[in-house]
């Protein structure tokens, strides 16, 4: 039950993109085609789950026992950066097809604040290992969801008469605002 609450909370109620504003850059950047958005979402979810595991281990097995909480940010970001690099190399070696569809997004993930945000939030909330992993998975699912919805809308938007100066980022942001409003409908599911 507890895990379910964490999942629903991170995936829809407190959606990373629409209510925590994490991962806005890729959200604006690659949300113009549905297929691309889904690949990006999948890659991010994968890295998120991995990052949730590894940063939890680092935080609870190294930083806390040795009293080094001030190294949290430095070590988390290094871990995430190397993790992304590693995943990229691994995918390139094992599956060239997958690499072709995901590869270009991987470097982008390093500076995706959703990943670091995930690591920091789960450390802040003192989740245990399982909770962290579920949190990572849910955050990834929520990110993919938001990205895909956005991409779906933007594909239609190409046909809409948007005022000249609002083309691109401005209209995307406004739509994101409306989506965020819609997602507010999920709030209240937590206290049930």
């Amino acid at each position, binding site marked *: 039950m507890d895990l379910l*609450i964490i999942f629903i909370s991170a995936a829809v109620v407190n959606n990373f993109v629409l209510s925590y504003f994490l991962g806005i850059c890729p959200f604006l950047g690659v949300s113009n085609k549905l297929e691309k958005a889904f690949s990006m979402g999948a890659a991010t979810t994968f890295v998120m789950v991995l990052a949730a595991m590894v940063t939890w281990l680092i935080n609870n097995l190294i930083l806390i026992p040795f009293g080094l909480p001030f190294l949290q940010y*430095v070590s988390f970001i290094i871990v995430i950066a190397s993790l992304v690099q590693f995943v990229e190399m691994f995918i390139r070696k094992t599956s060239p097809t997958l690499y072709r569809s995901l590869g270009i997004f991987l470097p982008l993930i390093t500076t995706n604040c959703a990943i670091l945000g995930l690591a920091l939030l789960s450390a802040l909330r003192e989740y245990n290992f399982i909770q962290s992993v579920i949190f990572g998975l849910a955050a990834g699912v929520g990110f993919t969801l938001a990205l895909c919805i956005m991409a779906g809308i933007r594909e239609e938007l190409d046909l809409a008469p948007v005022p000249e100066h609002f083309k691109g980022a401005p209209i995307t942001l406004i739509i994101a605002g409306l989506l965020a409003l819609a997602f507010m409908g999920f*709030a*209240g599911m*937590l206290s049930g």
Partner: protein
Amino acid sequence: MKKIAKMIIVLSVIGLVSGGVLAVVYQWAQPKIIANQIKETDAAVFKVLPGTKSYKKAVSGDLTYFNCFDKQGRKLGTAILCKGNGYQGEIRLMVGVNNDFSKFTGMIVLEQLETPGLGAKIAEQKFYGQFTGLATKPPIEYVKAVKPEKPNEIQAITGATISSRAVVEIINKSVKQWLETK
């Protein structure tokens, strides 16, 4: 080979310098951070249990509470730290109960993520003020849109019933938990 050695050396030096600098800054900031946290708890405890001069922290399971004493060292009551899920995220609050556990002496919301302008009103005096003097038994109830009549009732915020209910449930749950530890 030489290149790799240089890479490793440069990275290690940067890492070491960074760690060293941070350790120094941490040494400087840590006492201040702890002092701030203590000040925050102080302020909250003194607010929910007026007249408190000193308190003792107690932890049982995941429940934290503070036994409060007045100037002469007599026990005044207990301030209980409560947390639970609200409308959009976790709510943390503190309630004070008097020594014979007949009424609440005050309530204060420490952290909340409720909707600004609606649910966030739980952090306003108009709402949390209702808890001062409220009867502890039976558990708190809330009423909508009408004036509370029974001594254990509060009025929910218009447009934010869920947040109001969440606060009531969080308090009832934590108080029950606290009674069980006694």
